[in-house]
């Protein structure tokens, strides 16, 4: 087991290392092949580990890292059903995306850099997934942040991309600080850094410290998962290559925040305040970003806002005490969102870097395979029963609704509204991009929409999993097996804290399913080829205002610009011009100038002429000798 887990972790690391050191000298085929093979190897190991372990847990120390006094950090892993599912998901999605990338990056010269960072990302993500020691986990946590930064700014010669990378890095750092403090507190309070032991001893924490820890962990997770108020980096992160968006900013890294809370659930659940905060922020984020997604026209930004909104469901699941529901949604979301992003990547490459869905159209005829794959992703994201995200999303809704606190009823309502808006924006994107348009753009008609066939077909496994993700956890209320629920039942929080009766479950799921289908029909009537909503921005003034509001994400970016970045810039300017240049530098300059004035007389002496120097030398020598002779003569 130890070997399997070691290989699972370090396959991508070694491949990344080799690519970093000698990748430049390898033939392109071999470099790409190695990058993919290492991740596929990890996938194989994840499956092997899953098969070997069953429902058992393993707490293994791979090797010691550092030891100072009684503070010791070891690279240890804690393999439980939660980690097993996550490891499988991460390696599976990464493998497909690596294969896709080979096609996607076929014309890029920087493939070595790309695959090296992708491999390092997979390694760091697996560290987050498996690590037992919190400091080891933090290594992965920062590792994915670094890889995300470097891959968003992958085409760094364009300054917009580089800025987006920096923005993501700085904003996630705001969250990471809180996580770092939480780790230090854990060590201070429990003298433990191992997740296993912390969960074991969590009940010894007092209510106040548990709240503090819960909120700190949540704040760390908020940064990584782009929840309110640190939302703004994710839409800009779409500047990176599309496979990167699919892997890092949809399937894996942004869900790491939710995963962290699930891993440390016994700590979170102790604090009532933390749980309510998590659920409230999640519901608000979901509604906020779903509305923002409705106003976007860049296909990748729609998906980015949708990701934020879907990740908030996972947080809502954790906040309602239902880890299994959150994990279920994490799993299905990873499949369908990666599928949608990769499909969007196909569209964008086929249309020569066109991101605007309102400039697309007629794609059903021209890219039929992508159409069907994208449809699979869309019905899963839109939670049309019985596909993909429907049951996972509804399970979270039910857990929220079943919570005895009255505020959770409001949150459940908000989440349901979010679900309906999700259907609307998903199919807005889908219909506008794919259906025929009367005023279709002739320039695309003429263009050659050719993309490698491999790039399209590699999405097929994702599509199958996205559509049948519901089968993993088909609720027992409908005669399913609920395999995932049983598998995860043994982890903390695996069984929902406040289960609802099967009758209520059945009626609510049928109700929300019907509502979703109704929304789908409505979306069709709004955005069908003859629909009136196909112009962007709308000619009507009021709608234009509304669209602008949604398009800018409720002006959150501008608010931060005015409220935080502006004052910071002004302050920095004062420090720079008045303090640094005005006070410090000028004083130094004045000191230097006075020395210069002083040395002005001496300067005249250094003529650079050898004869002058010789004369001076001799003169000085004569003076010294004369003084010596005279003093000898008089003081003898």
């Amino acid at each position, binding site marked *: 087991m130890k070997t399997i887990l070691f290989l699972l972790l370090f396959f991508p690391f070694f491949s990344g290392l080799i690519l970093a050191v000698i990748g430049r000298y390898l033939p392109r085929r071999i470099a790409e092949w190695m990058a993919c093979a290492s991740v596929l190897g990890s996938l194989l190991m994840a499956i092997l580990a899953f098969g070997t372990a069953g429902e058992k847990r393993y707490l293994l120390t791979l090797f010691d890292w550092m030891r100072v006094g009684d503070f010791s950090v070891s690279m240890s892993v804690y393999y439980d059903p939660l980690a097993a599912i996550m490891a499988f998901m991460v390696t599976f999605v990464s493998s497909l995306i690596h294969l896709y990338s080979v096609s996607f990056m076929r014309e890029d010269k920087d493939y070595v850099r790309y695959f090296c960072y992708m491999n390092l990302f997979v390694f760091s993500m697996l560290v987050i997934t498996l690590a037992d020691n919190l400091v080891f986990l933090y290594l992965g946590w920062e590792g994915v942040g670094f890889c995300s930064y470097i891959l968003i700014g992958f085409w760094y010669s364009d300054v917009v991309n580089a800025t987006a990378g920096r923005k993501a890095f700085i904003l996630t750092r705001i969250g990471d600080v809180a996580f770092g403090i939480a780790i230090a507190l854990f060590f201070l309070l429990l003298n433990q850094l191992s997740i296993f032991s912390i969960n074991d001893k969590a009940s010894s924490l007092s209510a106040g410290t548990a709240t503090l820890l819960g909120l700190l962990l949540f704040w760390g997770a908020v940064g990584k998962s782009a929840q309110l108020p640190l939302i703004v980096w994710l839409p800009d992160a779409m500047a990176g290559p599309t496979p990167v968006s699919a892997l890092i900013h949809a399937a894996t890294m942004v869900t790491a925040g939710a995963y962290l809370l699930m891993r440390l659930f016994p700590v979170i659940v102790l604090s009532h305040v933390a749980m309510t905060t998590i659920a409230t922020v999640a519901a608000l984020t979901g509604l906020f970003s779903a509305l923002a997604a409705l106003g976007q026209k860049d296909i990748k930004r729609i998906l980015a806002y949708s990701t934020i909104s879907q990740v908030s469901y996972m947080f809502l699941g954790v906040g309602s005490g239902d880890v299994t529901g959150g994990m279920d949604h994490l799993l299905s979301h990873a499949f369908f969102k990666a599928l949608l992003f990769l499909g969007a990547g196909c569209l964008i490459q086929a249309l020569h870097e066109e991101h605007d869905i309102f400039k697309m159209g007629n794609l059903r005829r021209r890219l039929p395979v992508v159409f069907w794959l994208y449809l699979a992703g869309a019905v899963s994201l839109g939670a049309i029963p019985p596909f993909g995200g429907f049951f996972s999303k509804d399970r979270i809704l039910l857990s929220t609704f079943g919570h005895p606190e009255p505020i959770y009823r409001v949150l459940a309502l908000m989440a349901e509204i979010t679900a309906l808006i999700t259907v609307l924006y998903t199919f807005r994107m889908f219909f506008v991009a794919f259906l025929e348009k009367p005023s279709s753009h002739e320039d695309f008609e003429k263009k050659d929409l050719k993309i490698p066939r491999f790039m399209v077909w590699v999405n097929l496994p994702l599509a199958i999993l996205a559509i049948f993700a519901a089968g993993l956890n088909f609720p027992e209320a409908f005669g399913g097996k609920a395999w995932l629920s049983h598998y995860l039942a043994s982890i903390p929080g695996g069984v929902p804290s406040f289960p609802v009766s099967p009758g209520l479950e059945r009626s609510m799921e049928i109700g929300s399913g019907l509502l979703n289908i109704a929304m789908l029909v409505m979306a069709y009537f709004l955005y069908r080829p003859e629909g009136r909503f196909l112009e962007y921005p709308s000619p009507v003034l009021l709608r234009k205002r509304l669209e602008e509001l949604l398009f800018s994400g409720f002006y959150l970016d501008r608010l931060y610009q005015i409220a935080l970045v502006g004052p910071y810039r002004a302050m920095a300017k004062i420090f720079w011009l008045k303090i640094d240049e005005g006070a410090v530098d000028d004083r130094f300059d004045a000191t230097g100038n006075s020395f210069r004035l002083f040395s002005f007389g001496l300067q005249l002496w*250094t003529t650079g*002429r050898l004869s002058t120097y010789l004369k001076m030398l001799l003169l000085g020598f004569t003076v010294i000798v004369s003084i010596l002779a005279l003093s000898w003569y008089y003081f003898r």
Partner: protein
Amino acid sequence: MIVPYGNVLLLAVILFLLGAVCALTRRNLLMILVGVEIMLNAAGLALVGASLKWRLLDGQAFVLFIFAVAASEVAVGLALIVYSQHRTGSVNADHYNLMKG
């Protein structure tokens, strides 16, 4: 010693002054080097005279050192002069003013 020590010292002083004037007034690097050599030999003469007067061999040993210094100085100095001539095409000391402050 047949010659009085005072005469020896006088000769040494005259030689030293001649060398110093040569080193100071000439602008040719070679002549400066010659002046320095003369000054060194004047010092050597004074040392030999003193050694004979007090019958101590230390002075003569010192002269050997001065020979060695003079020889190496000439070797290095001439090499530098040849190199400078190659670089700037001149052996005039006042043409080298890179060190001007």
